[in-house]
């Protein structure tokens, strides 16, 4: 084979060049979202891991139960009662949509349409 050395060096340079982003970011996770957590509360409706993974299901359950099943209260696993409401419960503790919900959703590129109707705390017109 002709120019074996040059070809191998070329291939190595090629591989390194195309994996530069990987090498530059090695060991750093930059895209991790940092939602602003409530300061005067310590616990969410359910535990944090559950909320992180299943809050959309919880919201779906709440809205079905409240609107279609005539129920008002949700009991969490500790027996604490919450009124099932996006604006009156979630957003009373999580007082900002932009600094909480959106920070995660921008990272995972999801756009729930809830805020077309539901009023985010920051857009309340006086």
């Amino acid at each position, binding site marked *: 084979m002709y120019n074996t050395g040059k070809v191998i060096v070329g291939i190595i340079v090629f591989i390194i060049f195309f994996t530069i982003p990987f090498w530059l970011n090695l060991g750093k996770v930059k895209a991790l979202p940092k939602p602003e957590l409530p300061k005067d509360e310590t616990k969410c409706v359910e535990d944090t891991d559950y909320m992180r993974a299943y809050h959309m299901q919880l919201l779906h359950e709440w809205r079905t139960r409240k*609107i279609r099943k*005539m*129920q*008002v209260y949700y009991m969490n696993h500790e027996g604490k*009662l919450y009124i099932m409401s996006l604006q009156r419960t979630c957003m009373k503790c999580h007082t900002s949509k932009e600094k909480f919900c959106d920070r995660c959703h921008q990272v995972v590129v999801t756009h729930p349409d809830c805020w077309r*109707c539901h009023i985010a705390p920051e*857009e*309340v017109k006086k």
Partner: protein
Amino acid sequence: MSIKRRDFLKIVGYGIAGSIISLGGGFIVGRGSEILAMIDKQGEKKGVKWAMAIDTRAFKSEEDFEAVIKACHQAHNVPNIPDKNREVKWIWVDTFERAFPTAETEFISEEVKRRKFLLLCNHCDNPPCVRVCPVQATFKREDGIVMQDMHRCIGCKFCMAACPYGSRNYNFYPPREYLASMNPEFPTRTLGVVEKCIFCYHRLDEGKMPYCVEASQGKMFFGNLNDPESEVRKVISENIVIVRKPELSTKPKVFYII
């Protein structure tokens, strides 16, 4: 074999400690089942059928109507759209001949025919809008309230065509731009959905009266139609009442005292 005094006292001590713990446990479990029962029961309101009676004799001035309409529209973020053909309203005022078109020929006094009437969704017992909704966005709850689930509404407007009372409005304009102030406790709606009065289901479920009834200061009555002792039943039986378009047999649950 005899027990030593020391051992005997120990056993008695354990016994007392154990019973205190189980008492506490029993108390907690007991409370738990109480709460569970409450949670389970919250959905079933057997035998409740909500109804409203409006004393049209008591509504005299523009302000009387204004106060009621404002209370509802502000609380529910109903937009104030100037275009009369495409406005959105949950509760509004109209004349006798428009509210009761088929009663016009009947022998009702001129004074009554000159009155203004407060109109809203009748929460019919036999609601035509529910039958035509292709996605079950509008449905009748067990307690008779005709609910509108905005999350399901696709804006097809079938229900508007079906409703004989004009109680339903389509959002032709972005509603938020026509709101002077917002109530952060209740959602707005969005372009392309149909909306109407929901009999303040959220307040009834929490044991409160609808906003309009509260703001009317005794000119409107609300209660359980199935309970002979309730206020609505009393005022309905003691006064002459009419409903809108009874010949359609939609069985309205908003009664007008004349």
